[in-house]
């Protein structure tokens, strides 16, 4: 299997789907001439032409709405946001239109659209550009939300998202674009939406996580192993639909869990998962489930404060030790 970057895995997914289905097209700021703000769409304009790879003005609400209309008319648009922080401007189209079309037209119209782009903090981009927004989108019925944490998942989930008949949001990690990993070359490699993956099997505590934090969880698990703690890392991959079975199976096995996420804790994904765990695995819990997340404040600009605000390997280890009563 080829070892490529997360960025190239997304590029492969787009190229393969543009190739496979003439109704697929990519649209967003700088996706064509500039090859994408993060070079995810490198070479696609050249290969597929400007009807399939469309540069737009800085009009998030406008091109998101155009995408929703195109999807209702039978095309399969992929809308790139330069960052999900800018997608907030397009929330009316995402939340009020895309999410509701199928329901409000009694199934007469579908909205097979993909919204994608980087989420969360990179480095010193300050409060307005460092938000992990997946929890807010996962709140709305009608939207599917996936958060790939590895290059292979990025490719498999984006391809599944493009082929799905409902609006799917793909939240990528800006700091993951350069991450390398093995990625299958099979053009029909897709990862079904709603299927979590055990990234590391363990017996003592479940670290439940998603997206950029998967890597952090694996590092924490490695460090815990040196202290004879066998941590299991479960990557949700899909936040909606949620693979509750895999989560519950893991908790029933280890009896202890920590939810690690990049976003804020309040009304976060961890809050939802903990609620589901206590409802479905209460009799298997040996300790309260803890959460590790970002500090409850806008992201600071200062490098040192930013580091303190973000979840860390150390805090994950501390939480694991606390649920293990160590």
């Amino acid at each position, binding site marked *: 299997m080829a070892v490529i970057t997360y960025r190239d895995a997304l590029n492969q997914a787009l190229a393969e789907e543009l190739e496979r289905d003439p109704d697929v097209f990519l649209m967003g700021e700088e996706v064509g001439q500039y090859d994408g703000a993060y070079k995810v769409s490198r070479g696609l304009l050249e290969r597929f032409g400007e009807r399939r790879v469309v540069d737009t003005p800085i009009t998030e609400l406008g091109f998101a709405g155009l995408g929703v209309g195109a999807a209702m008319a039978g095309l399969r648009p992929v809308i790139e946001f330069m960052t999900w922080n800018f997608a907030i401007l397009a929330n009316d189209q995402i939340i009020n239109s895309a999410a509701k079309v199928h329901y409000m037209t009694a199934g007469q119209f579908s909205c097979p659209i993909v919204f994608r782009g980087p989420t969360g903090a990179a480095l010193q981009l300050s409060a307005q550009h460092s938000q992990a927004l997946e929890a807010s989108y996962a709140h709305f019925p009608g939207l599917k939300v996936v958060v790939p944490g590895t290059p292979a998942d990025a490719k498999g989930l984006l391809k599944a998202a493009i082929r799905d008949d409902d609006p799917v949001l793909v939240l990528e990690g800006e700091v993951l674009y350069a991450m390398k990993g093995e990625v299958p070359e099979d053009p029909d490699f897709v990862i079904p939406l709603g299927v979590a993956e055990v990234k590391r099997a363990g017996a003592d505590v479940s670290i439940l996580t998603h997206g950029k934090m998967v890597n952090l969880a694996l590092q924490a698990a490695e460090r815990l192993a040196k202290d004879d703690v066998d941590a299991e890392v479960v990557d949700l991959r899909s936040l909606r639909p949620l693979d509750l079975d895999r989560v519950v199976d893991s908790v029933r096995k280890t009896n202890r869990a920590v939810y690690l996420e990049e976003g804020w*804790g309040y009304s976060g994904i961890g809050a939802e998962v903990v609620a589901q765990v206590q409802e479905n695995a209460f*009799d298997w819990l*040996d*300790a*309260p489930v*803890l959460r*590790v997340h970002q*500090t409850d404040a806008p992201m600071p600009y200062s490098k040192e404060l930013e580091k*303190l*605000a973000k979840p860390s390997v150390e805090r994950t280890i501390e939480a694991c030790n606390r649920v293990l009563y160590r």
Partner: protein
Amino acid sequence: MATKVHMEALSPTMEEGQLVSWLKGEGDDVAEGDILAEIETDKATMELVARGAGVLRAVLLAEGETAEVGAVIGVIAAADEDISAIVDGAGAPGAGAAADAPAAEPGEQQASAVAPKDPGPTDAGAEASGVEETAVAPAGSGDGRLRASPLARRLAEERGLDLASISGSGPGGRIVKRDVEGAVAAPAGAPVVVGAGARAETESVKVSQMRKAIAKRLVQSIGPIPTFYLTIEADVGRLLEARKRINARLESRGEKVSLNDLILKATAVALRRHPEVNASWQGDTIVRYGRVHVGVAVAVQDGLITPVIRDADVKGVADIGREVREMAGRAREKKLAPDEYQGATFSVSNLGMFGIQEFTAIINPPESGILAIGAVEEKPAVVDGEVVVRPRMRVTMSCDHRVVDGAMGARFLATLRDFLEDPVMMAL
């Protein structure tokens, strides 16, 4: 912060405990979970575990002395901490666990001893950590609440263990999985239960009005448990032969089974066939146990204790024998844990070895019956119309009439006699 060492309720019925020996002395370093002392309860000698770490600063109860449950019998603290206030106020149970619990409203979030939250300016990292515990049980057990994780509660129920008899090693004394597993693992080398899949569920049968009236009248008639007795005599020739053959096979392993082990097995299998006897009177319901745990009366120096052979119906005779001897040995040394002598569903008492031909045994509530086994005697018996000498044994069952009626008890004893007279029938 100083941790008071309390006299803990190490058995469910314990009201006071005698300090057998301190395993740590004043000035010794103590880690949480270390064994501090041995305490003799009303049933056994148990270990007292440290609930905090530091130095054992004060020993407030001498070896050989007794103290009420809850009394402060020692103090663990930092080497330089002032503990005079604790030492002065120690002794009375009132100053015990309850007073030790930090004013704890149910559900109130409190600083955990594991990760103290100090909102000082130098602690920005911890403050900003975003690590939250969804629920922290208040420390201390002074409010009488039994703290156990949901998992520990389920495991204890599945294994028929009384949570109150288990010491918790989690925060605030919370009983967690490892504590329940430790309690189960206590009998060393306990045999593995086989064929457990065939067990029935425990069920409660609602008591009919007629049954209630019968129960009430019978209680008025005789004592709190309306007991009646049924006696059978069995020809145990084949049982003795079976024992001989089994022991010949076991010889190479250096093991032996006794006649009593075979009787226990026969009783357990008969109980499995008659779940209405493997039952208990609970007032509004009769509980029919899904598992067969047979208590074996063992005489100890100052009384009687009944180690429990759990799931005796699915255990081999050799396993039963090994378990009985191992537990009886520890019973004499007062080393049985509460879960090893509680939770029987039926009991057997055997005075045959003392030459007692026949006797009646006292029911151990809430069980509904007990078998009194007499001595095997050579007696004239009629076999195929001829008088021959046969080894005969009398078995008397004491029955709780609220649960077991005469005919019901008789049917159970008929099954038992089949097994005693022709042990191969147990395999049916």
